[in-house]
């Protein structure tokens, strides 16, 4: 039982992080109809920026305090993500309005290649570490209930809390602010939104920026967990089943989908993996999502798909 709970907790924590990456996908898809394959590259790019800035800043400004150093690095990285969002809107999206989904998808793949190259050219291509003071010690929970308790990594708990916090902030931003309302309007109908005076281009910059921030947060969390390196880009591929499970257009779907995938992956690896040679995490999530799609094509919370001739 304790073993099962451990796996379950591990899955939930991982799921929260998937949800964070998936959120970036969903935000952009909702607002611009672009399936943003570059989300993984953005995670890597943001994490690289963060890692390198926090390394450079003590030398540049003479700030020795780690907290302030990290804070400034975070702000600088966020600024870079903003510039990136602005450039992407200016140079790419603006020219591809009204193109088919697959063309836009390919364009984001182009952006992926570009960002991978750019990030490693500017920031270097070694393995860097991000140290934002996340605790590394494991703790035991429920000592009194089970013999030996349940081993939980405190870092994962913090990460999950940060992710949850970000999700809450984002939903508040979407529901309560006027910008958020404008974003939802654009998501509903581009033309209608434009006709009541919502500037599409500015909205897109904002959305890509918000997605950039979620990428930055995801990058920091994943980066401090496993180091900032090229393999971070694969995180995006791990998050894809999450969005088809949760529905491409649903923020809660991304979170619940993330949790389901996280748990499913972990449990399958633990209980099923040994029989088939292990390493099934990566495709199990996809197959889970696929089977799910067969019964509910629009995902968990996606809008019902209605076909008209």
């Amino acid at each position, binding site marked *: 039982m304790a073993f099962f709970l451990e796996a379950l907790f591990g899955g939930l924590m991982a799921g929260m992080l998937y949800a964070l990456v998936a959120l970036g996908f969903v935000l952009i898809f909702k607002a611009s109809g672009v399936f943003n394959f570059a989300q993984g590259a953005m995670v890597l790019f943001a994490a690289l920026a963060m890692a390198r800035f926090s390394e450079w800043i003590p030398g540049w400004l003479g700030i020795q305090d780690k907290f302030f150093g990290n804070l400034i690095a975070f702000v600088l990285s966020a600024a870079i993500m903003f510039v990136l969002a602005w450039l992407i809107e200016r140079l*790419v999206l603006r020219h591809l309005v009204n193109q088919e989904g697959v*063309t836009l998808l390919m364009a984001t793949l*182009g*952006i*992926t290649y570009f960002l991978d190259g750019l990030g490693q050219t500017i920031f270097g291509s070694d393995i860097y570490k991000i140290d934002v003071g996340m605790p590394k010690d494991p703790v035991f929970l429920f000592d009194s209930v089970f013999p030996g308790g349940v081993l939980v990594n405190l870092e994962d708990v913090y990460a999950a809390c940060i992710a949850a916090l970000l999700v809450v902030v984002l939903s508040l931003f979407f529901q309560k602010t006027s910008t958020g309302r404008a974003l939802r309007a654009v998501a509903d109908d581009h033309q209608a939104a434009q006709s009541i005076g919502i500037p599409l281009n500015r909205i897109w910059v904002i959305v890509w920026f918000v997605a950039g921030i979620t990428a930055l947060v995801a990058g920091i969390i994943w980066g401090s967990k496993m180091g900032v390196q090229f393999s971070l880009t694969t995180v995006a591929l791990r998050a894809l*089943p999450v969005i088809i499970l949760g529905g491409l257009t649903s923020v809660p779907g991304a979170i619940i989908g993330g949790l389901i995938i996280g748990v499913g992956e972990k449990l399958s690896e633990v209980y099923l993996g040994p029989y088939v040679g*292990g390493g099934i995490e990566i495709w199990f999530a996809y197959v889970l999502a*696929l089977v799910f*799609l*067969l019964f509910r094509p629009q995902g968990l919370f996606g809008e019902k798909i209605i076909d008209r001739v």
Partner: protein
Amino acid sequence: MFYRENGQFKTSYRSDQQIFAIAQDRWAILALIAFAFVGVPFIADEYMFRAILIPFLILSLAALGVNILVGYCGQISLGSGAFMAVGAYMAYNTYIRIEGMPLIVALLAGGFFATLVGMFFGIPSLRVKGLYLAVATLAAQFFCDWAFLRVGWFTNNNASGSVSVSNLNAFGWAIDTPLEKYLFCLVFLVVFGLLAKNLVRSAIGREWMAIRDMDVAAAVIGIRPVYAKLSAFAVSSFIVGVAGALWGFVHLGSWEPAAFSIDRSFQLLFMVIIGGMGSIMGSFFGAAFIVVLPIFLNQFLPWAGDLVGVSISTAAVSHTEFMIFGALIVWFLIVEPHGLAKLWSVAKQKLRLWPFPH
């Protein structure tokens, strides 16, 4: 002036229905094929064959397969790399497990198994479409990557996980020099190219296009979506599977699953989109572009660096390559979203009137 069909009267259904209705097209294609068979062997050197021509031929074949699915039937697939892998590994298993198996039969068997796998992973297309389907086909990619890495049977329980074939021969001809490999692939490409060209003009090709343009409307006028979609998956994965088998047997010789990773799927999709969706010709253009561009950048960047007096390190070259490749793709999509085939047809249209403006 030269490219005009005036005076070419069709007097029979047969002549009206030929693949290339315009005589100039017909002659140009025949000349091109003749040149590829006879002319190229004299002018290309070994490097040219190995690095450019053979990959170009095989990847065009794969792009052709992907184009049937994506361009003609409108089902976006990111699992083409997996179907190539199935083709390669199953051809390998057929080749070594059955005594005296002829090479060509083994390659086609690879295509056959790819067809089965492709149809299986095509089943979700009956329920989901568009980008959902694209993500769903990734399941095929990751599953196959895993299976060929972890299941020992596929690699004949080879400890290193890589497989290799040698002493290829077809009808008693040994295929080991680059020139022979080139001709071998060329034969496959020409045969499959003609088959595909004919297929998309036939009833089934028209069904695919109807499904692509609007599947609900197509179903209403009596096209069975199940049949049309699954047949597109089948034909496409067969061609892609044969291409994968060729890639493994002829181009690589020995390979591991990484040769057919998700990057390969993206690469094939790039070829189709840049070449032009729904165009057989486009597949060749796209393959040529994607094969030649990295090689060109690889040669050109250090040279350009020397020119301005900066020596660029290998790592920097590969990063810059990534950047330029990505930027070019985005630029290309912006300038010509319909691909090189569209430019080609515009050029042909202009050529028809030339030198008159109207």
